[in-house]
């Protein structure tokens, strides 16, 4: 995310006026209470001009004590003095100094140095971010939850209209959300929403043509595929543009409609969600900025990860669920918010460490300790999965291990390890979907191995200081 640094570098999303004019007026001291020559200056009949100048200098030093204490050098004090109306003539006339720079130097020398205090730990408050994280997790899970609710109907449709659209939507959401965040940095929410709108629009058009090409009959297949893509499009827009809370209302309507099996109402609720999520696209306050070719490649990697997740989710959780809301969905639904909260706690501890430490070695030790705590949570599915084997249905065991693999993927993506993340999802996807594979037993073995390999890789990623820059 591009930070806002008024005065240090141009940072506005658009150039409006000088790049130096970032919306914040330059500072001026504002504490120089006494104009010069000033009636408020101490005037004693017997004071010599030098004594008067000395008194004024002392008074000015008191006024500017804080500014001088925070100053980097003489020039900063001089700049502040000039911005407050002190020029060389004033310095000579009122303070008997050769000029502003000399006056600034005299002021700095009068301000006693104070012992430097340790930097205070700073991080955004945890509780509101935890709530926001849960809201985001709820939105993120909405397509999967609704797919679980209508899994039987999905499985009756042609593959590309049901599960295929789920995979396309999931992959599109992962890839386009990456591009959306890139765009958000330069063009703001409106620009990001427009990019997502164009991206999902193109995906829907392509998917519609594919369905027509393979002869899917009108209208059910098209409606279901379109609804899935629209759902992913809405959720992605809300997550990228930061409008989760208002989108959550629309998502809740979708959940309710799906719970009552009201297809028409579900479509209507989806329409509401879509409109709410894409409201920022109509804002006139759109910035500018292009998305280069490199982010497109990176987005492709994210799309591959998303596709793999969707395939695994469908094969292990949704396929063959016999008309019931699959029990196997529970581990994934529970794991996503839990791992998000764990990562939030992890990031919070790291942020605090970065804000107080100035020694990279000490930070590495701190990061290792925090990462060990996060690893303990990440390892739960790898322990629970084998423990459940033989006790719980194989599909549930596989789903628990799948939740662990999803969590590890999330960590690797967050720590900029797209290659390992792709491997962690891609290899199990390939093995589980092999024609000769017995899906559940294969999935359990493959996902257990993936968890065992992924845990140390994720730990190493979390310990790497470079991944926090």
């Amino acid at each position, binding site marked *: 995310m591009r930070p806002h640094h008024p005065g240090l570098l*141009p940072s506005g999303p658009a*150039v409006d006026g000088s790049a130096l004019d970032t919306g914040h007026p330059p500072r001026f001291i504002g504490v120089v209470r006494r104009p010069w020559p000033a009636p408020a200056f101490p005037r004693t009949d017997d004071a010599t001009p030098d004594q008067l100048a000395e008194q004024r200098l002392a008074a000015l030093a008191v006024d500017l004590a804080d500014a001088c204490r925070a100053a980097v050098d003489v020039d900063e004090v001089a700049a502040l003095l000039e911005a407050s*109306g002190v020029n060389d003539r004033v310095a000579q006339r009122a303070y008997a100094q050769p000029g502003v720079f000399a006056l600034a130097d005299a002021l700095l020398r009068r301000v006693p140095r104070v012992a430097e205090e340790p930097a205070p730990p700073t991080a955004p408050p945890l509780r509101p971010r935890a709530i926001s994280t849960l809201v985001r997790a709820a939105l993120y899970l909405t397509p999967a939850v609704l797919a679980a609710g209508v899994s039987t109907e999905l499985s009756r449709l042609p593959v590309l209209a049901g599960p295929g659209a789920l995979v396309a939507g999931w992959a599109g959401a992962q890839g386009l959300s990456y591009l959306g965040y890139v765009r958000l940095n330069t063009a703001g929410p409106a620009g990001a929403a427009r990019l997502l709108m164009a991206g999902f629009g193109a995906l829907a058009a392509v998917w519609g043509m594919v369905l027509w090409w393979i002869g899917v009959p009108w209208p059910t297949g098209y409606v279901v595929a379109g609804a899935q893509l629209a759902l992913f499009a809405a959720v992605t827009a809300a997550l990228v543009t930061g409008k989760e809370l208002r989108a959550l209302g629309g998502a809740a309507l979708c959940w309710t409609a799906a719970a009552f099996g009201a297809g028409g109402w579900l479509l209507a609720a989806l329409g509401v969600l879509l409109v709410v999520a894409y409201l920022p696209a109509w804002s006139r306050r759109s910035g500018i900025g*292009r998305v280069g070719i490199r982010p497109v490649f990176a987005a492709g990697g994210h799309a591959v990860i998303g596709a793999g997740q969707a395939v695994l989710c469908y094969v292990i959780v949704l396929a063959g669920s016999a008309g019931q809301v699959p029990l196997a969905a529970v581990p994934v639904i529970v794991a996503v918010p839990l791992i998000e909260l764990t990562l939030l706690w992890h990031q919070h501890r790291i942020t605090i460490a970065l804000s107080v430490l100035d020694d990279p070695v000490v930070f590495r030790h701190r990061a290792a300790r925090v990462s060990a705590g996060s690893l303990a949570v990440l390892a739960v599915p790898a322990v629970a999965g084998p423990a459940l084997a033989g006790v719980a249905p194989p599909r549930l065991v596989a789903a628990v291990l799948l939740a662990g693999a999803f969590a590890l993927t999330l960590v690797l993506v967050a720590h900029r390890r797209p290659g390992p993340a792709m491997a962690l999802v891609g290899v199990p996807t390939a093995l589980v979907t092999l024609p000769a594979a017995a899906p559940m037993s294969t999935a359990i073995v493959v996902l257990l191995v993936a968890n065992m390999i992924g845990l140390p890789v994720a730990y190493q990623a979390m310990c790497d200081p470079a991944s926090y820059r």
Partner: protein
Amino acid sequence: MRIALVNEGTYPYATGGVSTWCDHLVRGLPEVDYHLMAIVAVDGARPALALPDNVRSLTTAPLWDPARPASRSGRRRAVRAAALLFEGMLGDTAEDIAAFEAGLRALAAPTRPRGRHPLAEVSTVDPLLAAWARARDRDGAGDGPPLPRLTLRDAAEVAMLVEHALRPLAVALPEVELCHANANGLSSLVALATKWRTGTPFVMTEHGVYLRERYLGAVHATAGVKAAMLRFHRALARLAYAEADLIAPVTSFNRRWAVRHGADPAKVVVVANGVDPARFAPLHDEPDAPVISWIGRIDPLKDLHTLIRALPHIRATVPDARLHLAGPVPPGNAEYAQSCRSLAADLGLSGAVDFVGPVANSRNAFAAGRVAALSSISEGMPYTVIEAMMCARATVSTDVGGVAETVGDTGVVVPPRDPAAFGAACAALLTDTSRRRALAAGGRARAVARYTLDRCLSAYRDLYAQVA
């Protein structure tokens, strides 16, 4: 003659101020082929001004768009160069400047594929922290303010900011005979790199003082980030002052900063701003009412509070005196504008202070008053004063920046933040018609003699010929 005109965030993507100055320059010198380079926040904007025919190309250098990284070996070289850069920027000696220059030269060297940025995706946090630790050890023995702590978060932020600040190094200028950097800082960074690569000389114009503006702008950063970035900008400014073939501040007031930071005084030539006398023809008539006119943006630096507080002092002598305040309220200044209105109301002067908002032509605003006022606490060389003089309006101004040298003896200059002095000066002019008219006529004559657009253009024509 082919000249690259380098701007940061202004021409041709913004209007007013420096952009207007550039537009006058480019249109006023049609014999010059200009290649514009604009350092912008992000790419993709459309120029806000129509470009004249003698603009041959427009290149942008976005600071915040995604950048293509250098090759692996190029990145290793970049880390070594950045280490030198950090080492040099934190010190204050000639050796430090040399180290900074060596680092910057290495980063500017065209050894990587075109368009790739030397520091993109390169972590320079460790060399920054190492340089910072050594500088703090050295600082302990010095008598200036010591460097503050640089936390790891600060270091990451500084490394990121420096990386983005150096993005313009990746952009190559077309082949030109002269580079005209329209400020110190990042504009001059481009000119420096071009000079090192091709030997092209460069002229630097300073409208304000880039370095001073960085000091004043460093408001919200932590102590460590602020110190590091100001050291970076100081080192860059010093290097640019030393390497520029000619430096042209708009006032002598700004010249002091250039000389203090290493500019050879012989290379510093003050070229004042100019306006078109035809556009600001003298105003022969005065309004019936004793009105003081002011024009500018409503901003704390303009210190309208002093002007409003001066009004009771004026009305003590001229009971029906009024203020005519013309100008826009920039984004973020609504609170200040409201404070001005509240102050007028508190002083019982609501009916005597007119906030008329933006005006298309400042001459109309001057026509509304008998005297033109400028109450700022900080200025370079304000166009407002030159335009008022050109319009033959007597001026009362505060003694800030280059104002006193601009008006000379044709206007009244008082200390800033002194409502009584300001009011007394205004009242004296309102009540003394002959003096007011004499000053107005003197101001017009002085402006015609010193501050015309033609004279400014002619000066640049000569400077270009001298340096190229």
